[in-house]
Each structure stands twice: as structure tokens, then as C-alpha cells.
């Protein structure tokens, strides 16, 4: 499972970075989205996998089962998903406005504020 996840995460990062180097704004944003998915899965994997043992204390016990799934990475990921969703939504609108005001979707043409 770890190996499979490592390959998937690596693929997401590679695809994200590749897309971020394209000149097209939309592709750039898709790249950013893939990158944040990769980061989320990375947290999930780094937290370790435990199968079929939720961190819930059974009715007849005082403590959770010894080998239970760590709930913290999942809480972190949920927070991160919400945040990256909001930032991505804002970025989409911003890039749309950029397209409307500059008339181009080519990032190389956005040079007027550069030095």
C-alpha cells in the first residue's frame, strides 16, 4: 500500500510541477490543484495506515483499541482540503479577471509589472 501511494503521490507532484511550467493559465491552475492533492495524500501516507480499526472507544472499554488509526492526519487533511479549495476558487476568479483585463491567457505575456 505504501509503495502504491508513494507512486501515486510522486505522479501527482510530477504532473503538478509539469503543468505549472506551461504558459496557459488554466493548465497552471490545474497543476496547482494536483500539487495540493499530492500534499494531502502525502500527509495521509506519512501518518501511517491502520486498517479496520477506527479510533473509537468501544462501549465496554475505557481506552481505544491499542492499534487504532491515527485521526490527526485525517483532521489535518480535512482542514487543508477546505483551505486549498477556497484558495483555488479565489485563484480561478483572479485568473479569469486577468484574462478579461489583459486579453490573454498566456502567462508569458503578463510582463508589465515585472522588472
Amino acid at each position, binding site marked *: 500500500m505504501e509503495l502504491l501511494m508513494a507512486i501515486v503521490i510522486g505522479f501527482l507532484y510530477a504532473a503538478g510541477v509539469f503543468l*505549472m511550467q506551461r504558459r496557459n*493559465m488554466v493548465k*497552471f491552475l490545474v497543476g*496547482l490543484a494536483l*500539487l*495540493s492533492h*499530492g*500534499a*494531502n495524500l*502525502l*500527509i*495521509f*501516507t*506519512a*501518518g*501511517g495506515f491502520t486498517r479496520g480499526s477506527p479510533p473509537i472507544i468501544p462501549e465496554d472499554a475505557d481506552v481505544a483499541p491499542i492499534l487504532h488509526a491515527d485521526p*490527526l*492526519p485525517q483532521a*489535518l487533511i480535512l*482542514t*487543508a482540503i477546505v*483551505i*486549498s479549495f*477556497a*484558495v*483555488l476558487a*479565489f*485563484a480561478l476568479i*483572479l*485568473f479569469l*479577471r*486577468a484574462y478579461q*483585463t*489583459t486579453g490573454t491567457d498566456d*502567462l508569458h505575456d*503578463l510582463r*508589465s*509589472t*515585472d*522588472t
Partner: protein
Amino acid sequence: MNLLAAPIVIPLLLATLALLGMRSHRWQQALAVGGAALLVLVSFRLLFRVREEGALALQVGNWPAPFGITLAADLLGAIMVVLSSVTGLAIALYSVGARETARERFGYYPLVLLLLMGVNGAFLTGDVFNLYVCFEVMLMASFVLLALGGEKPQIEGGVKYVALNFFSSALFLAAAGLLYGAVGTLNMADLAVKIPAAEDGGLLTAIGLLFLAAFGIKAAIFPLFFWLPASYHTPPPAVSALFAGLLTKVGVYALIRFFTMLFPLEASFTQPLMMWLAALTMITGVLGAAAQHEFRRVLSFHIVSQIGYMIMGLALFTPLALAGSIFYIMHHIIVKTNLFLVSGVVHYLRGTGELKELGGFYRARPWLAILFLVPAMSLAGLPPLSGFFAKLALVVAGLREAAWALVASALAVSLLTLYSMTKIWGEVFWKADPTPNAEAAMEPARYRMLVWPIVLLAAVTVAIGFSAGPMFALAVDAAGQLANPSAYIRAVLGTAP
């Protein structure tokens, strides 16, 4: 209300109230100025308490550390909160004078307050993931402030700013996840205990470098700074000044916090790298500034160059150098904000920042010229202003460590900074006005409203310069707490390490 939560809760509460009264400019302005003034009081109270009692901690929701979210303040955190509050007050006052009514209608003041909330949260949190959340709060507010108004340069600058900061957040998130996987905790105090005991040194070095890249983008260090000079000169002056004063310094704060408490630099793989980064950041920043001919673009490049000095103190990693770094941040936030505010007055009067088209300000408005000269000479490091003592401490620390190349570049960059400042002085204030009578009419009341915050910040600069002894002693104490965080750990975890 708890003193630790107040700097985060007050701006949130006031931003909500301001949003409820979106239609009334007066209501929003009163809330922003009043709230910022309240924040200044609270933050000074926090600083005095931390100074007397040592590090403070608050377990939010009563979950014991390291399981819950912890707020913690040591001297460095408390100093930073004071600085952000003073900057916030100056910006709020200035914004009232700037009268960007169209922007005020779309939530300018609530956004400024939310930005302060994110910044204060970043300084006070004791948890790595919570730091990420605070960064995002701050960034989201800054994204909207940068783009608010929708002028073409703003949107173009915004695209670069948003894209690179989003990327850096993804790196930060990945590093936080890996750190949790490696050590099993994200509470900073707990990390400070567990990281030295961890066996997998190579993995931790790699995670540290990932954090370096993430914070390096936010702090605009070489070679990750290109978004800064491409975006900071585009929004209205008050927003530029707020960003210039606070945002990159949050990145520097995070670097200092991480590479002293969590991944101590001493004799590590990262230390020589950090020295190179410091020197190159200083040099490229100042050379970039020398090639610019627009008021705010020059100043933007100087932010980059100044960040190099702060990283230099961190890279040398002696108690004196760290104290120098902290003192440098204290001096820099005030001075840089002030310079941007002056450039804003010039911009409102003449409608341009191109040095070629400006001139004659010393004759027309001598007091404004003097108010520019104070922070400008302080930035260049002329005694008896605050920048001189900041640079002196760093240079002395560098000489003691025999880091000749680093010291030489710091001194050369200082000279070039002076060149840049005299260039602005000569072009904007000293030379004859190339287009006389081009000045836009401005009511004296509005002009005074714009100048008062500049006077306030200039007075703070001079005060830091003249009380350099006690201020530096404070910075030394703050550096000592970073090098030996046992009090911080005890405050958070409740046990001695």
C-alpha cells in the same frame, strides 16, 4: 479575555462588526482605528507580562498539549505582535486619510483587520499546523487586498503573488505532513524535545530544507523573491506599506523559529547554505534596486536586500547574531512601512512614482522631505538611527565568527543602500521640479491625516535609535529564549524537558 488569545480574537471580532456595517465608511474607519489602537495596548501588555513572567501558554479548548492547539508567546512572539500592532495602527490611520472610498465599500477595513489576525496568529501559535492555517488566513486577506480595485497592474501582480504563495503553501503542508510522520507530533514545544532524540537525521534535514523552501518563498529570499518586486508596487500605497512591513517578516519569523528551536542550525548541513542565501539575498536585492527608477519598485527591491541581513544573523547562529537579527526585524518593520507611506503621499500628490517625473518636494514640502530622510537614513544605517545599531550588531557578530565574505557583503550592500536612498532623495526631493504645478490639489486636513502616521513611525524609529541599549537587551533576551527554549517548553507542556 486571555491575553494570548486577545491579539487574534480582537481583530476577528472587529472585522465581523465592520462587515455588519459595510455601508457606513465612518463605522468601518472607527472600528479599524479603534481596534488597531486597542491591539497596540493589548500587545504592549502582553510584552510586559512575558518580560516579567517568561513564556506564556494557553491550551485552546482545554485539550492538554501536545494533543490540542496551543497558543504560546515567548519574547520573540510578543515583540512581533507589538510590531504588527503598531504597523496596523499606522496603516489604519493612513487609510482614513487615503480615502479609497471605492475599495472601502468592498470590505477594505475588514480585510486589513483579518490580515492582522492572521499575522498575530502566526506569531502566537505553538503548533506547526496551526501556523499553516494562520499563514493561509493572512495570505487570503492579502490576496484580496492586493487585487481589490481590479486595476490591470494589480491583477497582473496578483496572479504572480497568488501563484507563488499557493505553491509555497503546498510545500509547507507537505513538510508538515512529513514532520508528523517522522516525529509523531506537530506541537512546537513537543517537537523541540523530540527532534534532538529522533534517529533519522537525514530525513529531518530534508524536512528542514522543505520548510526552508516554503518559508523562503514567503520571506522572499534569493532565489525565490521574484514575486515580490513584481507585485508590491501595484496596490494602493497603504496596502503596499502593510505588506512591506509585515508579510515577508512573518516568513522570516517562521525561519527563525524553526531553525533555532526545531532544527538548530549549529554545525548542520543547512548552516553554510543559509550563509550563501543571506549574502546572495542582500546583494541581488540591492543591485535590483539600483536598476529601478520608480519610487515603490526601488523600495520593494530593498525589502529583499534587507531580508538578507535578517537571514545573516540567523545563519551566523551565535547569541549576538540572533539578537542582531531580532533587533533588525524590530527596526526594519517600522522603517520600511514608513518609507512606503511617504512614497504613498508623493503618489497621491503627483499621481506617479516615476523618479524622472518627480522633483522639487524639498522646496514645496520641507517637512515631508525630512520625514523621508529619517527612515531612509535609518535604512541605510546612519547613526544614531535604529538601522545603524542593527547593522553594527550583525557586523560585530560576523567578525567574531570570522565570516569575512558575509561581513564584506553586508557592508558593501549597506553602502549601495545609501546610494539608492540618496538617489530617491536627489530625484524626488532635491532636484528642480521637471513639471511645476503638476501637484494635485489636496485639502490640508487630508494631508495631515496622511502625514500623522508617518510622524508616528518616524518617532518610533528615532526612539529605537536613542534607546538602542534597552531595546538590544530585549533582543538578546529573546534570542536567549530561542537558543534555550526550556521555559517555553515548560510553559507549554507543563514539565521540564
